[in-house]
């Protein structure tokens, strides 16, 4: 992508704002369907981030699997388990404040670590093509991942069956 640096910056900030705002809204809203919607925005923006990093394959997977697959599941399950317009119960204000404190404290500790750490300067290099990714996923050499790939496929299959088994009516 040959975007101008400025434009790139602008897009990044846009995505960043969307992510930050939507993730906070997703965890604070009392309407669960809205939360799912906010999550959708977050996921899509994340895909945008991946595109910005030139990981187009990852971005596509993100949109296809997360935004396309998982979120649909969420929406279905929300519709199955709650009535329209119903607000979810929340914990007491005290607990929420405590949670907030914990989250902020965690964030502060992490941020401190991140900002004090000296990151190495690395030269930018050419990005691997989708070809390479494909080879890596089904190759058997070093830095190639056929076994995990197959394991994940079996896992997914097992999940499909398992999910059906668990969720079916008895």
């Amino acid at each position, binding site marked *: 992508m040959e975007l101008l*640096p400025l434009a790139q910056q602008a897009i*990044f900030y846009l995505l960043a704002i969307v*992510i930050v705002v939507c*993730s906070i809204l*997703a*965890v*604070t809203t009392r309407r*669960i369907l809205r*939360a799912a919607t906010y*999550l959708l925005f*977050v*996921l899509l923006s*994340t895909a945008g*981030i*991946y595109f*910005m990093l030139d990981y187009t*394959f*990852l971005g596509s*997977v*993100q949109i296809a699997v*997360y935004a396309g697959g*998982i979120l649909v*599941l969420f929406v*279905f*399950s*929300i519709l199955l*388990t709650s009535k329209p317009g119903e607000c*979810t*119960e*929340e*914990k007491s204000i005290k*607990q*929420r404040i405590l*949670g*907030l404190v*914990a*989250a*902020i404290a*965690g*964030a502060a500790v992490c941020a401190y670590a*991140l900002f004090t750490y000296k*990151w190495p300067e*690395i*030269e*930018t*290099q050419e990005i*691997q093509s989708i070809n*390479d*990714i494909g080879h*890596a*996923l089904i190759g058997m050499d070093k830095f190639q*991942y056929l076994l*995990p790939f197959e394991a*994940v496929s079996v*896992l*997914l299959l097992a999940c499909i069956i398992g*999910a*059906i088994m*668990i*969720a079916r009516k008895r």
Partner: protein
Amino acid sequence: METPMIYYIVLSLVMFFAGVYGFITRKNMLMMLISIELMLNAVDINFAVFNRFLFPGQMEGMIFSIFAIAIAAAETAIAIAIIINIYRHISNIDADNLDDMKY
């Protein structure tokens, strides 16, 4: 590539702790699941970002993200199946009500 790496990481940091906050303050299990998704997503971003900025010639991070996404999908499917099953049993999906397996 003018946007420095740290920007991305801070972004994922915010997302992650938003997830943490959601996880510990919401009663509804679906909401907790959504929070988990947020956290997972934040981690995925980190993988990708570290790969992109620190090990540009390789693709372990990205592949990890792909697997993480796949596993998240699997996990969500199972979790939602379980939640639906629980809902059938107790017409409610509040985590507080689910402590039969304690001890």
